């Protein structure tokens, strides 16, 4: 069930009411893995594929109405830049000029990224459009994020990879922000997805997907999964339970089923 977002800051909604956290669930992961394995075996068969079928949150988003708007390269570049700014904000780094700072950081991280090269060679009109767009997203992020305390153990842009079906399928994910620890006796980990698109059905599927992949990776069910749109400033939060994770398995199975249908 979606939690109504009456609070103004993402930092306030991420971890919810401390007194209402359920006990840590480290028993569900094995069952979910088995469920996925069974479905994948039915769909992919026993034969080992040359390359695994890769599933990511983009597949989940793309299946509904949550597609990115606008030109592909520009929107992808905007996503990268906003994600970099978000990382800087969470690390409590002063951002002087969001576009320039993010591009500088991106260049320092991956100087040979073809997408970065495309951004650096945009014509003046497109460049100005992207800069203005980034500035608008930055303002929304700044007003909606709040301060994430270091004691919450925030980590950003976390990569997750899970091989399933004997290596025939690989679930990949990048979690924009994760807070909390799996060591607590209660559910404690919250996942945040930052999207530059308005929230839609695709964003909700992506939220479930993040929760599923994190459960498979860590063996512990997270507390909450949140999506924040830097386009509109709205955020959605879902408490993670077994039913939500089973739904996420269904979403993934749908993606694999579509991918295996021969045209």
């Amino acid at each position: 069930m979606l939690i109504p977002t009456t609070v103004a800051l993402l930092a306030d909604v991420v971890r919810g009411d401390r007194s209402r956290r359920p006990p840590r669930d480290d028993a569900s992961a094995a069952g979910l893995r088995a469920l996925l394995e069974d479905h994948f075996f039915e769909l992919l068969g026993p034969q080992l594929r040359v390359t695994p079928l890769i599933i990511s949150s983009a597949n989940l988003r793309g299946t509904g109405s949550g597609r990115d708007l606008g030109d592909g390269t520009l929107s992808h570049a905007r996503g990268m830049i906003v994600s970099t700014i978000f990382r800087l904000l969470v690390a409590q780094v002063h951002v002087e000029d969001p576009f320039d700072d993010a591009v500088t950081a991106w260049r320092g991280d991956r100087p040979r990224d073809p997408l970065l090269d495309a951004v650096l060679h945009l014509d003046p009109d497109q460049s100005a459009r992207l800069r203005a767009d980034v500035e608008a997203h930055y303002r929304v992020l700044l007003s909606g994020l709040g301060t994430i305390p270091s004691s919450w153990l925030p980590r950003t842009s976390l990569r997750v990879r899970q091989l399933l079906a004997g290596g025939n399928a690989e679930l990949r994910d990048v979690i924009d922000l994760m807070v909390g620890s799996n060591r607590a006796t209660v559910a404690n980990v919250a996942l945040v997805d930052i999207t530059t698109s308005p929230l839609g059905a695709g964003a909700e599927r992506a939220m479930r997907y993040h929760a599923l992949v994190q459960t498979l990776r860590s063996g512990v069910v997270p507390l909450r999964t949140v999506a924040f749109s830097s386009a509109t400033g709205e955020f959605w939060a879902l408490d993670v339970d077994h039913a939500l994770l089973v739904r996420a398995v269904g979403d993934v199975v749908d993606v694999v089923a579509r991918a295996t249908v021969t045209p």
Partner: protein
Amino acid sequence: MSSLIQRRLNVRNLAEVIEGAPRDAAWIEEEHRTSLADRFRAVPATERRRLDAWMVEHAGRPSTPFAWSPATARRILGNNALRRVQGDPEDILRAVRDELADQLLRATRGYARPGSLGHWLASVNHPILGLITAEAVNWATQLLECLPGDDLEWTVAASDVYVDLAGARTTLRGRRDIVVSTDFGRIIVRVRSGQPGKSTGPGLRSDLVVETLADPHGRAPRRYLGVWPDAGLVLGVDGTMENVRAGARDLLRTAVAQRRHALVLAA
């Protein structure tokens, strides 16, 4: 036969593989060291060679030249930061900033040699320092999350281990992040990004042999564990003589393969 231990990565499983490590680990004598150095000497090297688990896993293929980036700097900074906050993990961000400040101070005072982390950090501008901070916080937090429980005595390794083989123009490097001390010997944990591949076993065994060679008494660790937080997996090899021998053979094979690659490139 040498076997590979594999578990899903969580605090309980990691504690189990640490506590379940065999009590008796192998040890090597001076003759083993001499014999290994002789074998490496038999593989000609035009220049000084450096071998590590990564090269073993990639069959000695030449890698791209090393360059500092937020991703390559995070391990040193993250490990040093974790050492600072051991016992008080509440403020990893501050510890990373303190570590960065120390590195920059060293560079400002002229103690950082060209090519070092401090030297590179002093040359980058503040948005990149911000990204480096984010990466180092990620590393330290991930490491903290997969550390064994409070019952075990662990320390963040001060550095990787290096062994020079006399007269063989060869340096062996063993990667390690956490050292767990027990009454019966040490257990080493190393953390890697991504997911383990098919040659993970040889990589872990080569780290095991370097760690054993670097020990002044030639004592192998009870177990050598590789942790892959991205994949949620922990793999390990026991410190048996079989594994030490297999690791040494893998390193030698890599030296031979590296020599072949060098000859092909030169031709």
